[in-house]
Structures are given as C-alpha cells and as structure tokens.
C-alpha cells in the first residue's frame, strides 16, 4: 500500500518535472536571442570537431609556413588573408575553435569539480569547517580577476597547459562562494530536515540533497563563465603567458598580429572577431537560461 503510494507520488513528481522541463525548453526557445546564442555555440562546436577536416590548409594551420603568400589581404583563396609566414588565417581560426572550447571547458569544468563540493560542505556544516573554507576562498577572491592567474602563469612559465592550470587555481573560489550561499539557503528546508530525521548521514545529504539544489544558478554562471574563460585564456596568450607559437590560438594570433596591425588589419581582426562571436554565443545563451530559471525574471518577461 505504502509502496503504491510512493510509486504514485514519484510518478506525479516525474510528471511535474517533465512539465517543468517543457516550460523551461519553451522559455529558452521562445527567446530568439537564446537561439542565436545556441546556434553560434553549435557552429563552433561543429568546427571544433570537424575543423581539421574542413579547413582548406590544415598543415599551415598547425604552423607550416608558405613563404610565397606572405601577408596577403583577404581573397577567395584566403578568406581571412594570410600572416607573416604566409599561413591561411581562416584555417588557423578554424583550428583555434577546438583549442578555445577545450581550454574553457577544462577551466570551468575543473573549477566546478573543485569549487561546488567545497562550497556545499562549507554551507552545510557551517561553523569551523565552513569558516575555514570560506576564509581561504576569500583570500583568493581578494585578487582582481586575472591578476593572480597572471602571477601563477608567470611562475609556471608560458604554455597553454600552464595558462589553464593558472586559471583553474583562480577560478574555483567563485563557485565555492556561489555554492556556499545556495547551501546555506537550502540546509534548513523541510526536506533536508526530513532526510536528517530519518537518519541519512551528513555526507549523503550533502551529495544527494544539497548539491543538486545548488545546481541551477551555478549552471547559469558556468555557461556565462565559458565565455569569460575564453576571454581570460586569450588575455594570457596575449601577454605571452599562454599558448606559444605556432599554436593556432586566437589570443596568440591577435598578439602576433599586433606588430603588423596598422598595415595589415586582417591579421589580428579575424581571430579577435572569432573570440567575440563565440563569447557572445555563450553570453546570449547563458542569459536566456538565467531568465528561464529565475522565476522573478521569467514570469514577467516571457509569459
């Protein structure tokens, strides 16, 4: 009898969830800007996957010089022009998509894995453990964005892996703080109390009940951060602390093009444009999800 009841209630719950998911989808789809954002992300994802097979000059994209065609303006043969080694910038920009997507996913993903559990633990246990974790977090947050990453990357020496490491080191505290405030808000809700009352252990509560509750706002932030991570990697590369030549990294290409920029505008313009469009995609999509999730914003805006 009780089992049946439980089954029925879980079915009702599933139906409810399904309905919520449909509303959510509708909200995301109904907002045309989010579709544009999604389309941009998908295009770059596809480029990141099949890029090496569709780029017109894959060898040049990886660094092989072609000294006959140095610094040519955009043409049908070279849609984005060529650089000082005669390499096709279009191919290099296509190759750069994979690098940008992988680095930003690695940064945000690792920061989530480190930051969210710490924040959930700090929020749930509170008191000593919580305040120790949050003190450490605050120390990291006392630095202006990018500055600490710059110091770490400079210490490790310039390479794309080190730039990613440096950004992970400086990125996780933001998620810890977000998860912490969410955990504080949920830890005294009735369902958590109920779980505690029937004797569920604290670690299980943190993993099964606290962390999922922190997820929604954190996912929004993560989507937006995928864009910021791309900008940060580009900034480190621009300072010479990220990818090293001849990697077709967008930030590095802008940096290399800087010397030639006033005579050869296309060199730095197109890689920078690629950065902008992809980051714009993440920002548009992240905004749409935020509006869909935040009940205060969405009900008024979209329904």
């Amino acid at each position, binding site marked *: 009898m009780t089992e049946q009841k439980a089954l029925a209630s879980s079915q009702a719950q599933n139906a409810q969830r399904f309905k919520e998911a449909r509303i959510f989808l509708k909200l995301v789809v109904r907002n045309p800007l989010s579709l544009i954002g999604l389309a941009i992300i998908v295009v770059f994802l596809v480029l990141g996957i099949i890029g090496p097979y569709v780029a017109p000059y894959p060898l040049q994209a990886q660094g092989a010089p072609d000294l006959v065609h140095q610094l040519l303006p955009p043409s049908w043969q070279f849609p984005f022009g060529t650089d000082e080694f005669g390499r096709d910038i279009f191919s290099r920009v296509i190759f750069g998509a994979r690098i940008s997507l992988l680095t930003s996913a690695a940064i945000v993903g690792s920061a989530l894995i480190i930051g969210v559990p710490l924040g959930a633990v700090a929020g749930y246990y509170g008191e000593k453990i919580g305040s120790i974790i949050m*003190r450490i977090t*605050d*120390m*990291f947050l*006392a*630095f*202006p*964005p*990018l*500055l*600490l990453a*710059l*110091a*770490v990357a*400079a*210490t*490790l*020496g*310039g390479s794309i892996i080190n730039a990613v490491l440096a950004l992970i080191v400086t990125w996780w505290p933001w998620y810890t703080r977000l998860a912490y405030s969410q955990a504080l808000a949920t830890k005294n809700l009735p369902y958590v109390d109920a779980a505690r009352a029937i004797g569920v252990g604290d670690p299980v509560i943190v993993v099964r009940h606290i962390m999922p509750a922190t997820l929604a706002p954190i996912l929004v932030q993560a989507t937006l951060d995928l*864009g910021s991570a791309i*900008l940060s990697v*580009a*900034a480190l590369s*621009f*300072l*010479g*602390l990220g990818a090293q030549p001849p990697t077709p990294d967008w*930030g590095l290409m*802008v940096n290399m093009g*800087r010397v030639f*920029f*006033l005579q050869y*505008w296309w060199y*730095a*313009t197109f890689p*920078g444009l690629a*950065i*902008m*469009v992809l*980051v*714009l995609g993440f*920002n*548009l999509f992240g*905004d749409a999800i935020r509006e869909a999730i935040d009940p*205060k*914003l969405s009900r*008024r805006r979209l329904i």
Partner: protein
Amino acid sequence: MIVGVLLITFLVSHVIPGNPAALYAGSHPTAEEIQNAKETLGLNKPLYVQFYIYVTDLLHGNLGMSIRTHNPVLYDVGVGLAATLELITCAFVIAVVGGVLVGVYSASHRDHLLDHFGRVVAIIGVSMAPFWLAMILQIIFGQDLGLFPLGGRLSTDVSIIYPLRTITGFNLIDSLFEGNFIVFSNSLWHLFLPALALATYPFGLTVRMVRTMMIEALQENYTRSAFAWGLPQRIILFKYALKNAISSTVIALGMSFAYSLTGAFLIEIIFVWPGLGTYTALSILALDYPAIMGTVIVVAAFYVVINLLVDIFQAFMDPRVTL
C-alpha cells in the same frame, strides 16, 4: 585580507615548483647555477623562514630589484601606477556614468528600440577581448580617421615645449595645477581612445546589472504608487527606484573597477601607455620575475583597499547592508 594576499603571492612565488631560480640564473643555466641562485634567493631555507623574510622585506617596502631595468621594483611600480590610475579613473567614470544612465533608461523604456540597442551594445561589450577592441579603435579612429593619436601619453612636441613638473603623477591634475591648458587638452586627447576601450567591458557589465535591478525595483508596489501619485518620472527613477537598486549598482561599480584594473594591463600595451600594464608586459617578455610579482602584490593590495571602500560606501548608502 592583505595578509591573505601576501600568503597567496608567497605560496605562488615560493612553493609552486616553477622556475624563479632558473629565471634568476639567466638563460640556459646549469644545475649548479640554479642551486646558487636558490641560495641567493633563499629558496633553500625552510618555508616559514622564507615567509618571515618575505613579509619583513615587504614591510620595508622592498619588492626586490627589477632584472630588466635595474631599479628597485617599488620605484618602477610607483612611476607606472600614476599613469595607470589616470587611465583607469577616466575609464571608470565613463563606464559608471554611462552605464548607470543607459541602464536606468533601458529599464524605464523596456522593449523600446533604444532599450534593445543599449542591451545589444552592452552584451557585445562584455563579449569582446578588450585588447582586440583597443586595436580596432586604434586603427579606425587613430589611423584611418586620424582623429586621435595612435598611442602615448603626450605628444612629443608638447612634452618638449611644455615640460611638466611631476606633482601627483597625474598629467591631467598636474597640468591644471600649473594652469597649462595645452598640456591638459593634449593629455585628454591621448586619454580618450584607451579609456574608451577600457571602459567598454565595465560599461556593459554596469548596464546589465543596473537594468535588471531597476526592472525589479520598478515593479515594486512603492514605485507603482509613486507613479499613481503622479510624481515626475525622473524623481521616481533616480530618487526611489535607483536607491533600491543601489546595492547591486555599487557591486557593479566594484566589479567595473576590478575589470578596469586588469583590463588596463592589456590595453596599455596597445596604446603604449607608460603604466603598469606596459611595465608588466615588458617584464613578462624579459622574464623579469621580481617585477611581475611586485606589480601583482601592489595592484592586489590596492584592490583590497578599494574593495573595503566599496563595502563601506555600500553600507553607507544602503541601510539594509551591515558590515
């Protein structure tokens, strides 16, 4: 917080198995040279001793010697800081004044054409790499249209004819002290493009935050009754609604400042602005490790102080916030 900053910078520079010693020993060092460098830098002592030395040095204002310029790092940083602050302040004013105005306008004219336009500008503003935007502005307004100088802080002829006495290090203020309007306008003219490039990201940020908060504040009952009472819109917007949105506005200001600070590192290079960013970039190229870490410490400490001021200001403006 400053202690935290010191602790982290210490850990970064002393514990990460990086190459400060190798850098110090010069190019292509032998194992022995690295060992010697470690001893000179004190990297072979126990960690707590190293930390003690590190902190006492800092408290004496000793950030080490720059390998590239052979000046004490503190001196170099002091010279660059004024130029950077001048740039940041201008960018910050543009971003905040523009951002708040556009944000308030957008929120009160929701879904009008200008609202959409403002939001598009704002979201593109936070999607661009600031150094790339700086280059685009430089080539369009500096080179093609010739409206603004390509870089630098003062024109060479102006700085030769009117040598400026350094009082505060801010060209704009120093020239006003001396009543020298030619230098003043020339500085302003040089400031415009870099400040604009630097302001774009924080501008976008401010617009987005202010707009969201204002929309919420405008739907509260008290603003509705204010409208019903027939109060002028300007007063409702700026006196009542913005006051409630002030908390997030101040946060937006703090973030704007933070982004101006780090953005300056990237934009100064493009415009050859003789500030901390250019200094750091050159230090990175020359692998001048003491200079890089010294700059990081000074800027981070500065940022902590600014953050404290922001918190105090916020508590002052918004009685719901307690420190």
